[in-house]
């Protein structure tokens, strides 16, 4: 376990008392801080609550929110809810899969991009929508996929240039 992780656990455990019912909230908070649930994280949470690791894992795997690998630098979430599907969301998802050359649920080898799907973010009036780093992109089309993507690459290279300066 990294020291940094240890600090996170200590902090999170200090505001959630060791009660069984806080399991999901503990996992959510740890994931929010670390970006994903590492094996150590699951172990520590189980230890804190005094329950088995298997049970912790069982709960974590039930919910779509929990991830066991880190996210990419840009996290792309394509909505596959009813409104988005009706308005052509599948073509948009196909577009991202093609551009990134990863399947939904995956991450590019350089850890730049990860791709996920979601059931609905409640922004159905702007369907189809895509969430990139928590910003909503409304009324997407396959053509806009390439555009959005070019924008991201651009920003990516700009910010790394800024870093160098």
């Amino acid at each position: 376990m990294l020291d940094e992780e240890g600090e996170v656990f200590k902090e999170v455990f200090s505001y959630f008392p060791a009660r069984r019912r806080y399991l999901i909230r503990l996992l959510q908070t740890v994931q929010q801080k670390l970006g994903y649930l590492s094996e150590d994280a699951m172990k520590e949470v189980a230890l804190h609550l005094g329950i088995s690791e298997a049970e912790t894992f069982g709960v974590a795997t039930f919910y779509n929110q929990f991830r066991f690998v880190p996210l990419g630098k840009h996290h792309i979430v394509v909505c596959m809810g009813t409104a988005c599907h009706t308005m052509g969301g599948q073509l948009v998802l196909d577009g991202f899969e093609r551009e990134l050359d990863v399947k939904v649920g995956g991450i590019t080898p350089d850890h730049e991009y990860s791709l996920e799907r979601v059931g609905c973010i409640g922004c159905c009036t702007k369907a189809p929508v895509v969430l990139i780093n928590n910003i909503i992109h409304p009324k997407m089309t396959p053509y806009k996929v390439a555009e959005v993507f070019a924008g991201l690459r651009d920003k990516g290279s700009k910010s790394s240039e800024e870093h160098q300066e």
Partner: protein
Amino acid sequence: MTNDWEEIYQRAKEKWEALEASPIHIRIGTPTCGRAAGALDTLKEFREKLEKEGIQGQITEVGCMGLCFAEPLVIISKPEIGLPPICYRNVTYQEVKRLVDGFILGDDPCLELALGTLDLTEDAAPYIPEMLRFEIEERLVLRNCGYIDPQDIDHYIARGGYLSLRKALGMSPEQIIDEVSKAGLRGRGGAGFPTGRKWDLCRSTKNEMKYIICNADEGDPGAFMDRVVLESDPHSMIEGMIIAAYAVGAYEGFIYTRMEYPLVLDRLEQALMQAREYGLLGEDIFGSGFSFDIETVAGAGAFVCGEETAMIASIEGRRGMPRPRPPYPAEYGLNGEPTVVDNVKTLALVARIMGTGAKGFRSIGTPSSPGTAVFALAGRIEQIGLVEVPMGTTLRQVIFDVGGGVPEGRELKAIQIGGPAGGCVGKEALDLPVDFDSFKAAGAIMGSGGMIVLDENNCMVETARFFLDFLAREECGKCIMGRLGIKQLSLILEEIVRGNGREEDLNLLEEISKDLAEGALCNLGRTAPNPILTTLRYFRDEYEAHIKEKRCPALVCKDLIAYYILPERCERGCEHCVLTCPTEAIVSDEKTRTKRIQQDKCVKCGTCLEICPPEYNAVIKVSPPDRIKELEAKIGG
């Protein structure tokens, strides 16, 4: 305490009146959907412009008026010119300069950008007389939405908020339950169970501990009613929840919402904090001796957690699996104690019923479904957004008069209602009145209010496949019938849309559906066949086309279509499609400049069709793909 309240109320009223009287007041809708349309940039631009010009104006962030198709939405009041406030549509930051220079600094109301003027109805709900939809609408739940600042409890109080709670605390719990029962309130979460009866069951148990849970999960994809209410007017639900708690005898409450709704969580936390500050939550509310507090819980992305017993499991920190009912949560719920689970809109309506009385509520809607229905209109419909109509309004009115019908003169094909396990009804159902019982009779369910309109560009078989795929991903896996049955249905549909369907599949679909409807443990499984049964009932010919002719009539199913460029329509100097095709599938003949799609390279992304300028419209889809040979032969000959 009572004196304190008078003070709070007076202060809130003065604050509101000052706002209404201010020479310039700009309201900007910044809920999630407004943000997606750029409302935060609009807000920033207004702030900067007012500051730069040194204008003494008030800017208020409000929620969603339901006119999502016109977002970003801005309402400007300038009382001195003698006009009512004006509501403007699609005000992105680029339009701000025009409005500031024209209307705020000058006297030109910029009517070309306006949707209409904003008036108030008798009970102070905002409406726009120029729009037909507001004549049909009746806003009980949405009364404050898009008009008040959801982040300022004073706005809610100034408009009569928390007076119902005050009144309710002066009554006995039995009297409240009696009033809710007399009003005929039925739960708005989907099933339409009488709320009063549920409360009574919970009230009459002898347990010391009881809980109340607000179901704000809204797992139905395509539905966003509860999100809008909580982002726009959270206190209306909270007030109802406190009344409910007092009526059933609960001291602790939970609001379960989804982590996909970060703004809802934010606004709820803020609203709860403000309510606590004013003594509306916590110890000894309104000096009545009644104490109650509320905690929020964020779901972790599981549709099934909207089901009440699964939700309870999830709040307890377990996997969100439903369990058989009875016993109902009202007798045996959270931590084994009696628990009432109510939907957001149900609770918001409780606050209204306690204000206006059961009789007032009953005067709206139909005898068996009193009150209003809130619908989230999305899909292929002109005026996408949120509406609230009296129960008994016909579907036709909702879709055509309120929603403006299908855009671009296309034909309505189907209406999808009741969430993923609801159903799709055809045009035949347009005269159906919207209420719990008529929907059931039509083979669909009312659900919680998601309504998605489909037109000829939607394939009904593919739509059914989509829902079964969704349900197969989201079912909890507890019962065998649910686990295997749903998966099996989903696989059969998958084969049909791929063009591998067999004629006996239709019978098989119906048989498995029947077994599932009878044998699954919870309502997710029991209602999962609905998308199949309703599409088979209304659109059987589409299934047959897929199976017998390997053809997708709506030109949607990828394996059954191909893209083709009509040489006679193609403008040969144009290269748009060639340049944008992601797989370089389009080639241009060197001499004639004719464009041709190499079918083996085409991934059917649709970009060429989207990009081909509308004046040429040269790209078409055909089904089955073999039709291309015919078309090519025609040119050849």
